[in-house]
């Protein structure tokens, strides 16, 4: 059948798709392009310069915000992934689990509710119990909304996995713990890894909750960027944005590649 007469083809779709991918990437490209502008006024081009990258990297407030974000994201990722792994094992492997569906809904609840409602609700709770420590507040809230993002890939991996290998290990007199550590854990690692990666990215990306909960000393990166945007666009902000765009693209690619590999040698 010639392409012209292929009934599955619709006219103009090629052009539309090209336009769509341009639309997806052009805004990010614009930010990166503007970051190389020497002029102090971001919108007026003078000539190429890397000086805003230098001043971004030497900005102590930015580095402090980055540090806060990294600490919160790292702790929240460990907590969320651990809790998600336990919940997934219980839900998929547990026998006669009461409230199985309810438990699954509870774990996924942060995905269903508007984040701003959760953010202000948590703010009220923390102010009622008098919790002052900004880091602790952020870690608790971030762990909660990161858990479903860690849970879903782990659950998917566990569900598709056969029990044969674990049974073989048990037959060979491996203890329960050795079986888990040497057989189960390596088998679900791709799910675990992409879950943890997702949790980390979601935590790093969060603005709404962090903005509500952060106090003086615990400004996270998106909250700091928001304050910069409010102060007006600047080429330094564009340089910061470009560095972060690059970092997210690299991280996301790594996560997706690992996930794809995991799916290929799926058991």
């Amino acid at each position, binding site marked *: 059948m010639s392409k012209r007469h292929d*009934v*599955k083809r*619709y006219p103009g*779709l090629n052009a*539309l*798709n090209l336009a*769509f*991918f341009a639309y*997806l*990437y052009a*805004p*990010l490209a*614009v*930010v990166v392009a503007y970051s190389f502008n020497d002029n102090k006024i*971001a*919108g007026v081009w003078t000539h190429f310069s890397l000086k805003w990258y230098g001043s971004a990297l030497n900005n102590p407030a930015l580095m402090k915000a980055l540090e806060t974000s990294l600490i919160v994201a790292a702790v929240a990722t460990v*907590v969320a992934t651990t*809790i998600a792994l336990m919940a997934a094992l*219980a839900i*998929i*492997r*547990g*026998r006669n689990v009461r409230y199985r569906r309810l*438990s699954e809904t509870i774990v996924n*609840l*942060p995905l*269903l509710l*508007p*984040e*701003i*409602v*959760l953010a*202000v*609700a*948590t703010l*009220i*709770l923390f*102010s009622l119990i008098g919790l002052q420590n900004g880091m602790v507040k952020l870690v608790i*809230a971030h762990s909660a909304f990161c858990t479903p993002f860690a849970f879903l890939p782990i659950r998917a991996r566990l569900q*598709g996995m*056969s*029990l*044969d290998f674990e*049974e073989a290990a048990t037959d060979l007199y491996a203890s329960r713990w050795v079986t888990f550590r040497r057989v189960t854990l390596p088998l679900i690692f791709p799910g675990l890894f992409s879950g943890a990666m997702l949790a980390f990215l979601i935590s*790093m990306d969060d*603005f*709404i909750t962090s*903005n509500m909960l952060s106090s003086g000393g615990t400004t996270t990166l998106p909250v700091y*960027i*928001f304050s910069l*945007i409010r102060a007006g*666009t600047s080429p330094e*902000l564009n340089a910061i*944005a470009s560095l*972060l*765009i690059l970092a997210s*693209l690299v*991280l*996301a*690619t790594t996560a997706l590649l690992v996930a794809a590999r995991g799916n290929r040698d799926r058991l």
Partner: protein
Amino acid sequence: MTDSAHHGPVTATAPRARAPGFWHNLAFWGLLPSWLLMGVALLLPILIIAAVSVATRGAYGGFEWGFDLSGYRQILFNEGWTGELEFTPQYLVIILRTLALAGVTTLICLAVAVPVAYHIACQPPRLKAALVYLITLPFWVSMILRVYAWMIILGRDGPLPRFLEFFGAHAGLSFMYNDGATLAAMVYTYMPLMVLPVFASIEKLDGTLIEAAHDLYGNRWVTLRRVILPLTAPGLISGAILVFVPSLGAVLEPSLMGGGKQMMMGSLIQLQFSGGRNWPFGAAIAMTLLVFVMIVLLLIARRATAKESTA
């Protein structure tokens, strides 16, 4: 390995050698941490915010416990000095704007996602995987940066005003701080959430059905309307939910693109809680938003169970 291990209850094939209590205990101890975390960080706060929405406004910000519907009343009425109620539409306008912008965002995403996803689904496997990856990728860039990119594009001296100036528009043009700007950022930030589920359901479509429709003298448009769209409806619906629900709670888009004036419910809630303004009123708006989301989710759940029982 046996194929049966994929399906059916996994628990049935669990090793017999293990103590019978182990898997029961595993279920309990495994789920305990998530129940604790979600209880403390989610369920308890929701109960408290429901209580705060009917509390009295504190004299110095915050609130005092009690039962008072003034938070909800304030959504529609303004209370005068002598206690008379005067209808003020300012917050109703914000609620309607929220619903309208979320709805229009969903429709635009849907209209773009269907042809794009269809086209991708028609590509050879390797190219298909690459294109899906390219759609997922920008989604991992921080939300705030994706909104910021649109501030640059639409703002004064941005690429779009410059482009139009080149064709004779007057200088100093800016498209910022209105509903259109908010909409542009919302469509951009939520688009991948629509394309992926729509793609997933179009990809599963049986190509022979399209050929069959053609053999029965259906042209492309009839095939689209009578075969492709009905068969992919579940994917379109889940994409619509994935876009509509977070759109209702949008905060960054209205507060950055809409300026201070063109608020949505999310940015209104945020405003009431930052700087110790009116907590009971903010909580009442939050509960209203929660109810909207719950209505959408319940409708979907009912649809899903109705399908299950007919199947």
